[in-house]
């Protein structure tokens, strides 16, 4: 059981940075960065998010985290377009903290609901 993770962001760097940070604590989890537009400008790219979601869901589903509100709408649309929309959950949580928590939960073998729950919980005190 390994739930995947998609980071939806307006920025290529932000998405990749969150993915690398979360990946550090979750070497076996597929974390895909879907940030920025094709031309490098800031914005959310639906096709990129769809591709990332296809890759992140390796059978056990995937959670999507997003940076700002308009990215949430794109994430929702990507879930609707996903082969199995029940295999993808958009989590309303701070993107960095949520991604690290989700990655750790997925690394620990959590199922889709468990990983989504972990991502949405207030992160532990550091």
């Amino acid at each position, binding site marked *: 059981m390994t739930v995947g993770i998609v980071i939806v962001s307006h920025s290529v760097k932000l998405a990749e940075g969150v993915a690398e940070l979360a990946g550090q604590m979750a070497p076996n989890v597929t974390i895909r960065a879907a940030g920025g*537009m094709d031309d490098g400008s*800031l*914005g*959310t790219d639906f096709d990129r998010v769809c591709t990332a979601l296809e890759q992140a869901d390796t059978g056990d589903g995937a959670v999507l985290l997003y940076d700002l*509100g*308009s990215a949430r709408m*794109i994430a*929702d*649309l990507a879930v609707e377009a996903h082969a199995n929309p029940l295999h993808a959950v958009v989590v309303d949580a701070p993107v960095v903290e949520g991604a690290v928590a989700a990655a750790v939960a997925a690394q620990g073998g959590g199922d889709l609901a468990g990983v989504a729950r972990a991502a949405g919980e207030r992160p532990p005190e550091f």
Partner: protein
Amino acid sequence: MTMGCSGTDVASAVRAMATVVAAHRDELVELDRAIGDGDHGENLKRGFEAVVSALDSSEVDTPTAVLKLVAKTLISKVGGASGPLLGTAFLRAATSLEEVDGASVAAALRAALDGVVARGKAEVGDKTMVDALRPAVDAAEAVKDKSVAEVLAAAATAAEAGAESTIPLVARKGRASYLGERSAGHLDPGARSTSLLLRSLVDSAAAS
């Protein structure tokens, strides 16, 4: 009076929208710079340019197919909040546009509004495109037994007033909501572009 109802006519109307968007790019950018991130004009320009390319290179022939292509392209290419919102609007309009008369145009506009609200959860007063679109739909429905041209004219006029009404509002949805009270005193870019798109439809209907 009936509006042309072939896929080609709808495609022409959409191309006319693309022209209007390009002509107002800078204005929309300026509006978005004041209370957002300054990309609304560029977002819509990029999106509608992609729409025109898609229409050029595809053979969609029904109004529904054209509108679906428009929806899909805007969702993919706009890059900002207005992409999924307008995309959902076109998608919902597509599936409800069966015949083209005043009533069905009003119904398509209603479906578009419902889609925007379902997607973005904004209501009138939140300082978004909904402030233009909801009064437009209400006005269209009030005259839905008249011609397509009259329905669209009523919608566009109401949308223009609705857009103006956003000026004093404090934004509660979208990026502008980060500004809090400082968002008051500015026209919402998405409300403005929505009124422009509806006015463009009026002109297309008159020309056809």
